[in-house]
């Protein structure tokens, strides 16, 4: 990096979404963000799953996934009190970027989340997320600062004076959000009160940030605002256009809150940017987006963290500063990339144990990147908490109330032991969900199975277990799980219905508004549990049937659900895939098109053609390993030497009876079908009968190709054939492919199948080396000279890929035989 003294201002806007921002930018309503957008690099920032903010913001701050950083939810057991407390940074198992920067001698000012208690950053400042919470609704009452909210303590008094209490706000601060606030009966409608609290909280954060930006020396400043997320969960449902289920009066009152929230944040951003100065690098980002359109859910699941269904996959990324490109877009960024990119901005090495990567494309000049094994192994004073740090339980309780009010955590039962048990279960559940996000389905399945055994009435545990088993290819177990899920739903549904009936009889003389919120909540939970959830169960049935290769039956079930699922893009994609499997092309196209119309950013794609598999088949054929192909697909300009496809292989999910024909031969398979090759050691979650084990010995040649090249090649092929192709952004296609391939790789590794990865580019550049590797791997006396001659470098037309070592993979070469001949066990 060229700058010797770089200053970086990192601003986090929880839930900020380009889909809301772009129309406001176009209307000139976000002038400061526009400066950032026009003067720097912007892009989407892909989130992680589950989309829960404390996990995500810690991933942002560490560059690591939750199973590495240790923050798994909104609340945690308190080992010192035996109760439950809001999540703290005491659970974090790894250094955050501010620890690393502090250790490297940078002065850090951090206003982040979860950040309580404040960490003792050397020569730095930290203000925790407990700082701004007003515990008492009466502003006349004392508002003590929670212990540990500010480091160093010398700043506590000054900063505390800048806190804004919700009751301090005057009409002109509320009216931009709700112009007709005067029409609201606030005794019945508490939404305005919640709104005022959110405005006050973020104004407090702004007051702290502006105070510190002026009074404290800093090289790195991080400020986190959660208000846009709160505006979203409270008021996105009223954002224009009005949804059919939103009452007109509510729409009239609250339809302006979201826009006002963004405009207020833009004003605050403008102040921060102006105070930071033009030489400061500014990075604005969010952890995920928030559905502002037709994908807004009509209801929120009655489960902990249920509001997360409103979150969208992509957050925002905008970076501007010295040495950063101007007016450009970056693609393929994830929340995991923020910390590595910050380290690159400061010329510091990236930990190889980090899951993210520096976004090198944002730099005007490619920086010199260095890595180290792990920053956690680098000794020094980094400002982390000493082990055994303690938190005040009373303060923790107040903060928990806030999370309950937002719906992020369920109201905690009085019984502390039960509360601890439920909290720990929720943390485990989130961890398991996070593991599935990294294709660690076997580990996740163990956790879901344990949780479900303890709480068989928690059907979401069973549903997740079923998903893991499907991903693992353990279809028999999945069938058992589905049967058990059905039985449990019947049993606990009947119990809930009886209990609901009893409660209603008790409350027969009361109106709904007479009930306490807790009573209403309990009745809603019972009602939800009593519902048979037929559609959900049938959907699972269809998914399982499809996985079992019974596409016709799956489609039949899905079609019976069309009325209820017809507006769900995921459902329509699944239906389209069913039609595709049945070669009902027109119906498949119709379903896919409808899904794309509903959600252009998130449709699925399957398969990974154009990865160079045909080239390998040509080499193997030339070398003396006969290909198994049917010749149905003739050579053309896209593959002048032929495709070597075998139609039956594409149906391996339903029918693998053709495999004996493949003994001693090479078969071309798309990578996504590899998990359906029968045989291999059974996964932990899917024991197989002994007589089914390892029927064949496979040698898999996995062709790797830069995904950029694959996508460009697909595009070129579609253009030549006059097809429009997928209406998906390249970054989305890349993300989907990467996810699919990671899942396949996990399956192969677990089954301990022999795999040789050959880079398509290497096969072109160094056919001799590639041929030798393939021959050695297969253990066959192949004619390598003929293999080399089979490579025609002029076919490598799409040369726009990422640097070596990047992702592109694909396709396969199956030799159902050891040492060149099939070997039945």
């Amino acid at each position: 990096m060229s700058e010797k003294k770089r200053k970086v201002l990192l601003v986090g806007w929880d839930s900020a979404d380009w889909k809301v921002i772009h129309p406001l930018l176009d209307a000139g309503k976000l002038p400061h963000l526009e400066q950032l957008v026009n003067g720097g690099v912007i892009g989407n920032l892909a989130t992680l799953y589950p989309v829960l903010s404390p996990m995500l913001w810690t991933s942002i701050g560490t560059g690591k996934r939750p199973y590495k950083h240790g923050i798994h939810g909104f609340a945690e057991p308190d080992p010192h009190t035996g109760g439950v407390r809001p999540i703290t940074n005491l659970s974090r198992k790894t250094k955050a970027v501010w620890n690393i920067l502090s250790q490297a001698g940078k002065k850090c000012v951090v206003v982040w989340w979860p950040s309580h208690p404040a960490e003792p950053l050397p020569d730095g400042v930290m203000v925790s997320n407990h700082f701004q919470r007003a515990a008492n609704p009466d502003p006349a009452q004392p508002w003590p600062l929670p212990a540990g909210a500010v480091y160093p303590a010398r700043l506590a008094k000054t900063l505390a004076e800048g806190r804004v209490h919700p009751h301090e706000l005057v009409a002109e601060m509320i009216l931009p959000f709700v112009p007709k606030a005067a029409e609201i009966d606030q005794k019945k409608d508490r939404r305005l009160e919640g709104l005022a609290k959110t405005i006050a909280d973020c104004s407090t954060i702004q007051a702290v940030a502006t105070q510190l930006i002026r009074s404290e020396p800093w090289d790195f400043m991080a400020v986190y605002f959660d208000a846009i997320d709160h505006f979203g969960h409270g008021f996105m449902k009223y954002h224009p256009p009005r949804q059919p289920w939103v009452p007109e009066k509510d729409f009239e009152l609250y339809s302006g809150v979201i826009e006002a929230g963004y405009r207020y944040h833009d004003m605050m951003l403008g102040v921060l940017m102006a105070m930071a100065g033009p030489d400061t690098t500014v990075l604005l980002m969010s952890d995920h987006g928030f559905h502002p359109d037709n994908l807004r859910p009509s209801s929120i699941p009655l489960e902990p963290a249920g509001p997360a269904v409103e979150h969208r996959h992509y957050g925002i990324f905008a970076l501007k500063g010295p040495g950063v490109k101007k007016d450009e877009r970056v693609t393929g960024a994830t929340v995991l990339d923020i910390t590595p990119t910050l380290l690159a901005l400061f010329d510091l090495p990236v930990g190889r144990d980090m899951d993210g990567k520096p976004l090198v494309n944002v730099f005007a000049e490619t920086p010199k990147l260095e890595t180290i094994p792990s920053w956690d192994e680098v000794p020094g004073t980094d400002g982390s908490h000493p082990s055994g740090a303690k938190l005040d339980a009373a303060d923790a309780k107040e903060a928990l109330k806030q999370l309950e009010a937002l719906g992020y955590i369920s109201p905690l039962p009085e019984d502390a032991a039960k509360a601890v048990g439920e909290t720990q279960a929720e943390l485990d559940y989130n961890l398991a969900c996070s593991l599935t996000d990294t294709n660690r389905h076997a580990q996740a399945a163990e956790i879901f199975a344990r949780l479900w055994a303890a709480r068989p009435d928690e059907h979401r545990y069973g549903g997740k277990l079923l998903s893991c088993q499907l991903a693992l290819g353990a279809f028999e177990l999945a069938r058992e799980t589905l049967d058990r899920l059905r039985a449990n739903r019947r049993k606990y549904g009947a119990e809930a219905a009886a209990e609901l009936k009893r409660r209603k009889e008790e409350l027969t003389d009361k109106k709904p508004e007479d009930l306490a919120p807790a009573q209403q909540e309990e009745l809603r939970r019972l009602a939800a549990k009593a519902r048979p959830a037929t559609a959900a169960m049938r959907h699972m049935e269809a998914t399982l049937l499809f996985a079992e290769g019974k596409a016709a039956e799956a489609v039949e079930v899905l079609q019976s659900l069309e009325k209820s699922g017809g507006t769900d893009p995921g459902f329509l994609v699944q239906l389209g895939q069913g039609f595709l499997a049945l070669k009902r092309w027109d119906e498949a196209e119709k379903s896919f098109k409808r899904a794309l119309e509903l959600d252009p950013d998130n449709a699925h794609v399957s398969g990974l053609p154009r990865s160079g598999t045909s080239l390998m088949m040509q080499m193997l054929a030339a070398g003396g390993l006969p290909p198994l192909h049917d010749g149905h697909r003739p050579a053309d300009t896209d593959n002048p030497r032929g495709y070597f496809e075998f139609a039956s292989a594409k149906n391996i999910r339903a029918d693998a009876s053709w495999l004996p024909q493949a003994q001693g031969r090479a078969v071309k398979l798309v990578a996504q079908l590899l998990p359906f090759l029968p045989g291999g050691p059974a996964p932990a979650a899917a024991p197989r009968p002994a007589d089914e084990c390892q029927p064949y010995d496979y040698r898999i040649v996995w062709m790797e190709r830069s995904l950029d090249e694959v996508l460009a090649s697909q595009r070129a092929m579609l253009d030549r054939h006059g097809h429009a192709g997928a209406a998906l952004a390249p970054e989305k296609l890349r993300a989907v492919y990467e996810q699919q391939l990671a899942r396949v790789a996990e399956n192969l590794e677990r089954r301990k199948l022999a795999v040789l990865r050959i880079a398509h580019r290497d096969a072109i550049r160094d056919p001799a080396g590639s041929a030798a590797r393939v021959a050695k791997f297969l253990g066959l006396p192949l004619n390598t000279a003929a293999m080399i001659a089979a490579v025609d470098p002029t076919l490598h037309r799409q040369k726009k890929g990422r640097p070596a070592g990047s992702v592109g993979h694909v396709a396969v070469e199956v030799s159902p035989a050891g040492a060149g001949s099939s070997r039945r066990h």
Partner: protein
Amino acid sequence: MRPNLRRHNHSAWLEPGHPSVYLGFNLHANNRTYSGWLRVGLTFDGAGNPLAFSLLAKDGAPDIYGAWSTGAISLGEVGSAAAVPEPAQVATGLGLLALGAVGVREFRRRRRQDAA
């Protein structure tokens, strides 16, 4: 941010009998140019001495978002004719809160002043 007022024009001089004028201007701030106009008013006593000075971005209610985003020009604010206003002195409502610590202090000062 102190805006740089590089170019302006005006409709007339303020004087008794002609208590308001219009100023057109370009503001150059943060590498951007903001164009706009202000209605400037003076209130005079019976002897023709100015009593109060006012700036309005437009007739009617000021733009509640504009206090900072248009470069900290006073919107609907009444102040001293002699002073070049700082953002915290001229901003109102959300504009004041957006200024952060300085704005919160100014907001409370004004409330105390109003209460007194």
